[in-house]
């Protein structure tokens, strides 16, 4: 059946079987392979995208359920060559090693910052509790989100950041 939705601001449609999952629609039909398939069983969050602004596991949504709705994927974060604050945060704070979970992590945390521009460590950890990272131990992901929050608040400046961890003064 025909399905039409807005993906990263552009209207996209395709003819798909009802059983096609949103993640497969994005990856196979639209060739947006930034959204990853990890566990494929609603456990890991690698496939997280935003549906009408809220993060969801796209391996557990049918493409037809997104009919007429707005989907945002990791490809929709940057504005041309300018990275979004959350992307800068992950870059600056080494919020990734292998990078497999990163698109999902950024889709969750950028939605968090929309609702809560200045989250505490606990609120960040709570928000990403449905997303698994096997590399970082989550420490740097939390820092990355805080960095993005500061950046969004207009407070993050490179020299200050370089002094983080310099100790004591």
């Amino acid at each position, binding site marked *: *059946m025909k399905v039409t939705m807005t993906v990263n601001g552009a209207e996209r449609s395709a003819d798909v*079987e*009802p*059983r*096609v*999952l949103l993640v*497969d629609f994005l990856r196979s039909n639209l060739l947006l392979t930034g959204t990853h398939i990890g566990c*494929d*069983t*609603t*456990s890991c*969050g690698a496939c*997280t995208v935003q*549906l009408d602004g*809220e*993060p*969801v*596991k796209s*391996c*557990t*949504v*049918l493409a*037809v*359920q997104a*009919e007429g709705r707005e989907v945002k994927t990791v490809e929709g974060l940057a504005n041309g060559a300018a990275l979004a604050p959350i992307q800068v945060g992950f870059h600056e704070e080494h919020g990734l090693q292998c990078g497999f979970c990163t698109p999902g992590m950024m889709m*969750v945390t950028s939605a968090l910052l929309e609702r809560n521009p200045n989250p505490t460590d606990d609120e960040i950890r*709570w*928000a990403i*509790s*449905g*997303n698994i990272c096997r590399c970082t131990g989550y420490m740097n992901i939390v820092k990355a989100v805080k960095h993005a929050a500061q950046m969004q608040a207009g407070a993050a400046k490179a020299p200050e950041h370089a002094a983080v961890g310099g100790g004591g003064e």
Partner: protein
Amino acid sequence: MFPAAFDYRAPTTLPEALSILKERGDDAKVMAGGQSLIPLLKLRFAQPALVVDIGRLPGMADIKRDDGHVRIGALVRHVDIERSAELAKLLPLMVEAVHWIADPLVRNRGTLVGSVCHADPSGDWGSIMLALNAELVAQSASGERVIPIDGFFQGPFTTTLRPDEVAIAIRIPLPSGRAGGSYHKLERKVGDFATVAVSVQVELDGNKAKKAGIGLTSVGATNIKAKEAEKALIGHELKDDVIAEAARLAAAAAEPKDDIRGTAAYKKDVVRVFVQRGLKAALARAQEVKA
């Protein structure tokens, strides 16, 4: 993983949904958020010929007061409950418990009513609804029916809902006077099913329990209402010995099995401990409420 092929309908009115189910209900599964059904379809544990997506039905996403009850529509998601200031005031047990359900992403899609109708014996909402003495509102082409939650669960993934019916809402009686609840869940990690979980709700009249509800998760073929334990509380002051006896009776009502999450004997004992802790917490909360 792909589900087996199915026909898909997304009716935009309730009468349309009911007429589809009248015709094809026996081969169909109703889907709201899909957070339980889609995993089952992918694993091919379920292979319905037709999926009826009720996600586009109007007027079903409300939480409202209705004649001494709170009525929660079929499209109210877990996250809506999490954010509901009204429920936090009226039924704080639900808002406490919702944080234990799945993970934040699943809570953005999954629904209370869908979860209850899914009838997973490891589901959290079922035992909470049993503790709160909720009722389901089911609609079919031939009319509306109100189904008490006690007796609704027939076995794993099996309820008394008929194939031609849609559960359109859950109604929960509003506690009068001083009431309190609590939810205790043992899980290995976020998003896991409970090893054991216990929901408790008490309503006080003076020093004594006027009403008491205890629901058990993951310790039987369905969510279990620990009725003997409830009876042991009603009409009594909730002193330590009364609570200990109710906890013993609740553990006796549990029918857990040995599995990777623990032995049956262990799980029974966790039920006992959680009922005890839960009742003490619920009692303390009820006593804080000004009469």
